């Protein structure tokens, strides 16, 4: 028995026409693609590498790889997903031992209240007040700091899901993980950040 042929449907996203133009020889359109994504990729690189020079290196490497391999892009995913796959791989290659975020597994147990004193009996103020009243520069810095301290494999997932806005399935595809694995990592990353923020608000 032969397997049913998969439909070779091209995904025509907002980048489709631009990529078609570049691949048909209009190389002068490539800077339009850079303009569309350089800002996002730079911040993605910063969140993954922390160091600005490393972030610049990853952005440059990503675009050079896109330039080299764009002709092989088959529109099987959205271009943006493919781009982030290239960028994530570049960031992982750049990996440096970080004293802020040592590689380690986060277990669910460490986030579950272990003794009675830790069990909350009311919703804290910071989770109740309107978001716009809560937000200030110090808190935004704190959030960025907290993201930096996440071990890399959890940071990758939370950045793609909660900051870049990719779905679970897209994140799984970008990182070559199962959906279940993305969900597990995301939940632990969020719990890690929650504990971090809780500590910040309690000591304020």
């Amino acid at each position, binding site marked *: 028995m032969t397997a049913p042929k998969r439909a070779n449907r091209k995904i025509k996203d907002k980048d489709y026409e631009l990529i078609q133009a570049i*691949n*048909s*020889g209009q*190389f002068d359109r*490539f*800077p339009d693609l*850079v303009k569309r994504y*350089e*800002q*996002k990729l*730079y*911040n993605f690189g*910063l*969140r993954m590498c922390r160091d*600005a020079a490393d972030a*610049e290196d990853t*952005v*440059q490497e990503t*675009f*050079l790889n896109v*330039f*080299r391999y*764009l*002709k*092989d892009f088959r529109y099987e995913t959205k271009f943006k997903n493919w781009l982030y796959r290239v960028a994530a791989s570049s960031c992982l290659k750049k990996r440096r031992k970080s004293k802020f975020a040592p590689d380690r597994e986060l277990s*669910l147990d460490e986030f*579950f*209240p272990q003794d*009675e004193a830790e*069990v*909350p*009996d*009311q*919703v*804290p103020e*910071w*989770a*109740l007040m309107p*978001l716009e009243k*809560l*937000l200030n520069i110090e*808190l*935004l810095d704190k*959030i*960025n700091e907290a*993201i930096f301290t996440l071990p890399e494999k959890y940071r990758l997932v*939370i950045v793609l899901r*909660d*900051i870049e806005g990719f779905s*679970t399935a897209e994140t799984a595809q970008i990182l070559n993980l199962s959906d279940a694995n993305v*969900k597990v990592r*995301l*939940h632990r990353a*969020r*719990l890690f*950040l*929650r504990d971090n*923020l*809780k500590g910040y608000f309690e000591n304020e």
Partner: protein
Amino acid sequence: MSKDEHDHKHCLELFEKLSEYLDNELDEVACKDIEKHIKDCVPCFVCLQTLKRTVDLCKQAENRPIPEDFSKKLREVIQSMPKNPPAG
């Protein structure tokens, strides 16, 4: 539910699923199970609320502008690349 009861197995089971609940990735039965549980379990309700706020805050994380010098250099580097033949 008292604090003493909070190591209840059911709390632990639901604790694992709270992100999926917030992301609307659970089926109706699992959602209803959580909603029913948090009505009576203060610690789990607090946990859900603080987790939700964490996600909201994370979504507000600020972006830095790309340095202009780098952006310019990036275009120069790309400009200097040999041009690939169009896809066949």
